[in-house]
């Protein structure tokens, strides 16, 4: 290498180049692990691509039926549609009312008692790990077929979500005002109410609206186990392969969710 580099007045002293840090072995192990899990899971669920090709003819007839909703069926779906809406509204209201105090108990920023905190968090994790459909099946047995069991299942589902998200935003909130309230002689509950609640109210409100959207979607399906709403209807028409009617129900769900989503996005902007 020549030392007479004309462009720089002083020759650059050659320092030692750092060697590229090696993550090779670890990355390779991670990739191998992921591929292995995927293959194992693929065998488990019986991935079968040829079957799709074989069934295609059968599928096209169904799809054509699905593209022609039977609008005459609409009046018969109104009660179930209304019930779905009622369930979603009621579950959202009860679920958020229960979640707010629980969220304060589940955040280390607002609950000074470590044992109570750990207990509340454990129960919440447990509730969140039960699929809504499992809650719904059990509750249908306990309180009977209909909207009540559906509402209860949705409430449990909502409490799990809202408590987690709101307690996380409490964890991240600046605790200065709370410290000031405590220094002024307030008890923890009062300090939390006055100093922390106003801070997380906007995030709570948007969680509630988000949960409402989830509830509309969920309340259309928990009826499959008898918990009220459109789900019961889906189960009926599906069993008898009435695809024109199924198609109308899907269309209804689609319109309902999209309309309510934009309504809730608008409300979020106006109220929060």
């Amino acid at each position, binding site marked *: 290498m020549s030392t007479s580099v004309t462009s720089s007045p002083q020759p650059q002293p050659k320092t030692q180049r750092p060697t590229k840090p090696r993550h090779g072995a670890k990355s390779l192990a991670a990739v191998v692990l992921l591929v292995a899990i995927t293959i194992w899971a693929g065998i488990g669920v019986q991935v079968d691509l040829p079957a799709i090709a074989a069934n295609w003819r059968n599928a096209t007839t169904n799809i054509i039926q699905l593209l022609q909703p039977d609008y005459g069926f609409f009046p018969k779906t109104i009660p179930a549609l209304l019930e779905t809406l009622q369930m979603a509204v009621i579950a959202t209201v009860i679920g958020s009312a229960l979640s707010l105090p629980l969220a304060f108990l589940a955040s280390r920023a607002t609950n000074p008692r470590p044992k109570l905190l750990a207990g509340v968090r454990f129960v919440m994790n447990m509730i969140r790990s039960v699929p809504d459909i499992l809650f719904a099946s059990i509750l249908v047995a306990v309180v009977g077929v209909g909207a009540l069991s559906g509402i209860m299942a949705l409430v449990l589902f909502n409490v799990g979500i809202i408590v987690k998200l709101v307690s996380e935003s409490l964890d991240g909130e600046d605790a*200065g*005002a709370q410290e000031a309230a*405590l220094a002024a*002689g307030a008890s923890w509950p*009062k300090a939390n109410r*006055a100093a*922390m609640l106003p801070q997380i109210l906007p995030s709570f409100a948007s969680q509630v609206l988000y949960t409402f959207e989830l509830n509309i979607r969920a309340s259309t399906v928990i009826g499959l186990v008898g918990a009220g709403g459109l789900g019961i209807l889906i189960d009926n028409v599906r069993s008898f392969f009435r695809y024109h009617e199924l198609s109308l129900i899907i269309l209804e769900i689609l319109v309902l969710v999209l309309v309510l989503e934009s309504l809730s996005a608008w409300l979020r902007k106006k109220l929060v």
Partner: protein
Amino acid sequence: MEHTAADIRFSDVSVTYPNGYTGLKNINLTIPAGEMVGIVGLSGAGKSTLIRTINGLVPITSGSINVGAHQLNGRGGTQLRGKDLRELRSNVGMVFQSFNLAKRTTVLNNVLMGRLYHSPAWRTLLGAWKNDDVELAMAALERVEIVPKAYEKASSLSGGQQQRVAIARTLAQRPQVILADEPVASLDPPTSHVVMRDLQRINAELGITVVVNLHFLDLARRYSDRLIGLRSGEVVFDGAGADADESVFENIYGRSLTAEDVLGNKAEL
């Protein structure tokens, strides 16, 4: 507004933090009711610890502190807790370096936090404050000249205005003592003087005992009746501001003064 001032007595107070760090060493101090005291020292000298022992935010390891009729004891002594501790705190207002306001709610709601101790739980829960409490909060805002902002969100105010809201919050407590922990450290020089003058006025007009931590020596000398210098958790100076000359400050700081230790005369209002 009726205010009674309280005196503060430190008897052989030491604070050792759980990690072994010594915050305060054998402090003996008497602050008579109605005095305005400035505490100076380097950061880490124990200023913040000293102030926070007075309302029990930092528990003391040994010795005792009397605040008016209340007594805080070290380990082994009777501990002030629950309702009794809250009663003491309700008599002691505190102003913080970073204002510590709930920024998403109104100025008035922030000031009403000073009434939490005296309000029943259901009223706090519903936000249904007594008219007397609202009037008290308004009067407190009046004293710091910020009443027109009562229904604005705290976040919409400037730093100086936020600190004055914080002072109004302590006034709403009808305190016997106001503690201020570096109240002007986040403010620019002109605003610093406004806030210090508010504190001085409150001390003079209402007779409330005021204890204020300050980093800037000139501010401390100018606005307090008495200066206390802390170094490594010990009192190394206690006297009138006028007696504190350069050599005294060098003793407190353990080095000669630099431009960063004074706020300067720039832009005084």
